[in-house]
């Protein structure tokens, strides 16, 4: 029976049906749910690794050991894992090895929109790209078979609209795979990439990609749909769905394998249509290769309103959708502009619409530290996680943010460059494990003046509460060791280390102000569970503003808590609104109570004392 499955769930089913035995990943939107689904399926070992490079090494090791293995990550995770991807492309493996790259066109939840099909060409491995959940499952299965047939890692490239779209999918049964070898390989020429062996492997890999190109000519997921011959479209991924929707009459060459490309199939298709275009998201990946084949693509440069850019017709940035595709096609003279009568024009409201940006949740344990940092007015180098939201007004507390683990290295660089201000680095528990550790080791080793704050909220927060080495639990809910930050940081060579409750805002302020005056590296660990964790939720309670003490001074508004509102009641002396706490949102973290200069928000302890 067919069921509605998200692309991520479908990939999990695909890996499970393919008999995969090991899966490793680091969480990252839009890829996270793949491992969460897989972890609940029988007969498969699934884990969170501290970062994507480790995850891919783990999958490679499992595949060397003859077990089908999978590593999943978001697009930027492949940057972290790239070293492993390159050597795996050289060695191949003993069993199927699949890497899932979940790209994020439009950057719904990312720092860039890199097109990871480029990694397939870069490393000379095949890349499969599904256009719905059924194909996501089918191509995951195909990826394992292909990996074994050609002794190569295979990339399954998906995008946010595939991962987080549910479409009807047929679920099958698991094809149990016996371990493909009796003993871990001692095949040094193949698996030990010293120069002498690597030099012999490179030509093997170049031949492999030629063989794959030959194979792709008859690969069933590359198919031709002949309709009208006046327009032919080469497409792949979710863009194929837009092609079907916007050009119902056009003929389509739908590619399930986007690297290497089937040269003859493309030439043959080109020969059957009057005009040929490529419809793909982000980079002109297919387009450039087709042009290199000497195949003539429709060039709209004579069409009215055409402006040349890096791609012939469709935008190179952002996400496509039927409206974007239709607009581009009209500009390129491919279709007629619709008669305007039935279109909804832009709506002029006559007033500005308030934005609704994401904010740190009420009760977020990061808030106190970010507020103190905003008060110190020193440069704060940020990292990837919920705390990046500290960049929004009124906190404005984050000055740089590039990629996972960047905070400490960037702060160190500015510091050793002789920048006159004292530099902070802030990052979360999971991000510290991910790539913060080597950077902190560098701070200790080269003794820069960086003050690092590890905001330990006891969970990987931004991606929706995944376990990590600090949580004492694995992905498959097994009890395990809990890695403590203080001994770890000391072992990395930092001597000035302190752990504080993240809600103890007074001591955090005092400590940071003291440390700024002292030379040498230091690490403050601000520890408190994410307010949304079940054990934290149990302790939620609501605070109240005492309207007789509050004079509307606005200090509590500056901590950027969504539970603090401006009341309609005005302070008679200063004529400004008093503070009001939203009882539905307040968790009782007491940060507002602690920053209030007039003690107008009683803490729970004070409330209890009053009742007695």
């Amino acid at each position, binding site marked *: 029976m067919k069921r509605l499955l998200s692309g991520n769930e479908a990939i999990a089913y695909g890996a499970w049906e393919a008999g995969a035995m090991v899966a490793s990943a680091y969480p990252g939107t839009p890829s996270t749910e793949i491992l969460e689904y897989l972890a609940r399926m029988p007969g498969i070992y699934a884990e969170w690794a501290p970062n994507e490079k480790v995850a891919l090494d783990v999958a490679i090791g499992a595949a060397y050991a003859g077990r089908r293995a999978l590593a999943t990550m978001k697009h930027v995770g492949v940057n972290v894992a790239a070293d492993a991807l390159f050597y795996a492309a050289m060695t191949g493996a003993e069993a199927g090895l699949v890497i899932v790259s979940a790209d994020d066109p439009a950057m719904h939840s990312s720092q860039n929109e890199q097109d990871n099909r480029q990694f397939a060409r870069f490393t000379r491995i095949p890349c499969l790209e599904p256009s719905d959940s059924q194909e996501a499952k089918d191509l995951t299965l195909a990826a394992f078979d292909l990996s074994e047939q050609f002794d190569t890692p295979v990339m399954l490239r998906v995008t946010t609209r595939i991962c987080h779209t549910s479409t009807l999918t047929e679920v099958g049964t698991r094809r149990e795979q016996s371990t493909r070898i009796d003993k871990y390989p001692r095949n040094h020429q193949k698996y030990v990439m010293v120069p002498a062996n690597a030099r012999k492997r490179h030509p093997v890999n170049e031949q492999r990609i030629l063989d794959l190109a030959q194979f792709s000519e008859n690969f069933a997921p590359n198919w031709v749909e002949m309709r009208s011959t006046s327009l032919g479209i080469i497409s792949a991924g979710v863009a194929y769905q837009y092609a079907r929707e916007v050009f119902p009459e056009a003929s389509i060459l739908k590619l399930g394998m986007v690297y290497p490309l089937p040269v003859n199939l493309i030439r043959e298709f080109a020969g059957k249509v009057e005009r040929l275009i490529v419809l793909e998201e982000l980079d002109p990946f297919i387009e450039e290769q087709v042009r290199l084949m000497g195949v003539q693509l429709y060039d709209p440069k004579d069409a009215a309103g055409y402006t040349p850019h890096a791609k012939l017709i469709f935008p190179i940035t952002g996400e496509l959708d039927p409206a974007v595709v239709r607009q581009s096609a009209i500009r390129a003279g491919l279709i007629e502009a619709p008669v305007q009568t039935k279109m909804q024009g832009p709506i002029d409201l006559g007033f500005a619409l308030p934005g609704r940006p994401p904010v740190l949740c009420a009760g977020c344990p990061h808030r106190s530290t970010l507020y103190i940092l905003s008060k110190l007015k020193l440069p704060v180098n940020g990292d990837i996680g919920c705390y990046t939201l500290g960049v929004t007004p009124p906190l404005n507390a984050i000055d740089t943010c590039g990629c996972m683990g960047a905070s400490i290295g960037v702060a160190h660089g500015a510091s050793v460059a002789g920048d006159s201000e004292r530099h902070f680095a802030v990052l979360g528990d999971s991000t510290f494990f991910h790539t913060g550790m080597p950077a902190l080791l560098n701070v200790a080793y080269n003794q820069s003046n960086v003050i690092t704050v590890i905001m330990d909220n006891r969970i990987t927060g931004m991606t929706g509460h995944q376990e990590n080495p600090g949580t004492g639990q694995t992905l498959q809910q097994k009890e395990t060791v809990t890695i403590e930050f203080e001994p770890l940081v000391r072992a990395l060579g930092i001597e000035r280390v302190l752990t504080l409750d993240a809600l103890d805002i007074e001591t955090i302020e005092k400590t940071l102000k003291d440390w700024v005056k002292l030379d040498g590296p230091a690490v403050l660990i601000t520890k408190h569970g994410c307010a949304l964790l079940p054990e934290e939720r149990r302790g939620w309670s609501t605070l109240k503003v005492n309207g007789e003490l509050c004079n509307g001074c606005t200090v509590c*508004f500056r901590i950027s808590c969504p539970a603090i509102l*401006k009341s309609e009641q005005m302070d008679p002396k200063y004529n400004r609104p008093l503070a009001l706490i939203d009882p539905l949102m307040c968790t009782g973290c007491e940060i507002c109570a602690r920053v209030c200069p007039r003690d107008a928000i009683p803490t729970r302890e004070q409330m209890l004392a009053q009742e007695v």
Partner: protein
Amino acid sequence: MSPQKMNFMLVGVGGQGTLLASDILADLGVRLGFDSKKAEIHGMAQRGGSVTSFVRWDRQVFSPIIAKGEVDILVAFEKLEALRFLDQLKPCGLLLVNTQVIEPITVKAGDSLYPAQADMQAAFEKTASRVCWVDGLALAEKAGNAKASNVAILGALSALLDSPAEAWLEAVKAHVPPKAIEVNRTAFRLGREQLLVEV
């Protein structure tokens, strides 16, 4: 209006249950014999940001995204979000709005004003062929649990679509925990009845 080819857009704020409602609606499409697709953006769902999803029913659905101006029914779980995504609606489209107000941080911080009800009403009526209101929160509280407001809103939507309640209730049942089925069933009925009375 009996169910046919349909483009739904659901908009709201993180925590309102829009994504669960989208799952139920997509599932219902399958139960009614359609091809059905549901697309959502939920990266910031827990942090008070806007949450949007598309649900499409047709004989065969291609794009998971609905082109701007082609939404048949816009279901807004929050009034300001209805206004924000109003231009997604087709000219003769329907608008179902939950009366709930959730002030964004920009309003709470005093940087901007939450639009006046009269202005919103005027914009809604100018754009949609029909505007329906439902107080999902009050109905859910009446049913016994404020969390069921999303299902109360679906109840109201079911009245708009003039479709049998049984299929809806089966879809609801498949997506809520067993102990919450009764409350959700009641919330659904209340939402449906309220709108049926108005019609």
